[in-house]
Each structure stands twice: as C-alpha cells, then as structure tokens.
C-alpha cells in the first residue's frame, strides 16, 4: 500500500540554509518517489520575481534554491537538484498562444513523482534547502516548500 509523506520547510531569509529531517514510518518497505511544491508567502507584487523577462521566446525558469536529500544508510545522498518554481515554457513556440496563452494550470499534465529508490531500512531522511530566490530578489523572500515522499508500506510484517 502506498502512502504519501508531506513535509513542509519554510524559508524566510535570503541565502538561508535550512536543514530538516523527515521521519519515515516503521513499517516502510521503500521510498519510490519524490515531488515538491513551492508556495510563495510574500505578495508577488511587492517585488519578488516570479518570472524572468527576456527577448527570446524561451524563458529561463526561476531557480528557488537547491535541495539535497540523504540517508545514513548505503544510499547516502539520493537526490540533489535545483528547486524550480515552475516551468515557464509550457507554451514555448506555440503558435496558438496569442489566442489562448499556455499556462501551467491549463496546459500541464498531471504531476508524476520523480522516481527514486530508497531502502526501507532508513528511518529518517535528512535534507537541506539552500535559498536562491532571496539572492535573485536581493531581499528576503518568504516561502514554503512541500516535500512529498511516496512510500510503500508493509502491513504484513509480524514484527511491526
């Protein structure tokens, strides 16, 4: 049976490095997926950049920060990557965009988790988020990152 663990990490200062721990259930068999969502707590009209304007039709995404996830078991660091606010190029070179502009909410598919494989022996996932959004904005940006872990649980283990 699959269970989703959601852990929220709050960032409030520019260049902040925030460590966190996500405890896993005792009857976990493995972690199979990873996903995240970024929620801006400040008002975007107050000057927080939510898109980068360029002359090119390609828009670079806002890199909110870096995330690293690891365990003390053999996997070590099992995920390291950029936190992207959203993909602003869903309508890249789309000839219909003048009529019906492509946005995340009207042109995107359902969000499948990124596949990771983590042994169930791990009791805790350690992680950190290093802020980049505040560095980009040259001010403190308050936001939260929800980290989703998709776990497979074992309900048949007599020891549990």
């Amino acid at each position: 049976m699959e269970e989703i663990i959601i852990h929220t990490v709050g960032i409030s200062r520019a260049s902040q490095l925030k460590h966190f721990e996500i405890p896993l259930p005792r009857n976990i068999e493995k972690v199979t997926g990873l996903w995240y969502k970024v929620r801006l707590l400040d008002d975007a009209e107050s000057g927080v950049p939510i898109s980068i304007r360029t002359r090119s039709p390609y828009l670079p995404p806002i890199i909110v920060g870096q995330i690293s996830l690891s365990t003390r078991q053999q996997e070590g660091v099992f995920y390291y990557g950029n936190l992207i606010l959203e993909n602003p190029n869903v309508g890249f070179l789309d000839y219909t965009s003048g009529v019906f502009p492509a946005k995340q909410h009207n042109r995107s598919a359902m969000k499948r988790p990124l596949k990771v494989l983590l042994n169930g022996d791990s009791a805790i996932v350690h992680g950190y988020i290093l802020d980049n959004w505040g560095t980009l904005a040259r001010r403190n940006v308050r936001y939260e990152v929800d980290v989703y872990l998709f776990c497979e649980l074992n309900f048949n283990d007599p020891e549990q």
Partner: protein
Amino acid sequence: MNEENALLRAPKVFELQVTAANSKVSETFELDKSVKSVNGIAFTSEKPDLLFHRGYARVEINKREFFPDNHAVQRIMNGVDANLDNRYWPLENVIIGNGQVKIEFTDKADGRTVFAAYTVQLYLDCEIELN
C-alpha cells in the same frame, strides 16, 4: 456478463464552494448504490489558476485515505492538452463500502494569486450498474 447488469463508465461530479481565503472546507458526499467501482479521480474549477496554486485536499473513500491532508491538488489536475482517456488520476483497489466520499479542502495563500471565491469540482470515474 449479460446486458441487463452491464457496467457503464460514467463520471460522478461533486462540488464545493471556497468562499474565504486560507479556509478549510469539509464535505462528505455519498455515491449512489448503482456505483460498483471507482477507477479514477480528477479536480477542476472555473478558476483553475486559483485551484492550481492554492488548492490542497485530503480525499477519503469509505474511510480509506487516498490523498493525505494538505496534498496539493495541482498534482491531480491536468490541462486541456491531456489525452481524453488520460484525464483521471488512477485509483486502485477502491472498496466502495459505505459509499462515502469525504473531502477536506484547504485554501492556502500563494503570493502569485489574488483570492476570489471559486468552486472546486471533484470528478470520480465510476462504473455504474445498469438496471
């Protein structure tokens, strides 16, 4: 299976209103007795940008939790470019039981949006027994 008790695939739609920012709305709906299985789930709204950025939902069918509290609705939404036969998030091994579908919907502020009242529509992909 003969024609009399054939199963028809049809959506069941439930609606709930979000009238205040940063609020939690809980509703319990009941499936008809004719519903024999639930194969998928989808969310939509007349203001999809608000639902996409601000919507979080816990969904329970027959007291079994399929999505935990504060689960982002945007994972279960899809755009107009999705295939017609791929618009539901698949649900597996759903036992209809008492037929109760419980939704706890939470609206959370996101600085990229400005709140206005919106309606959340929950679609369930059901198989219905024809009499």
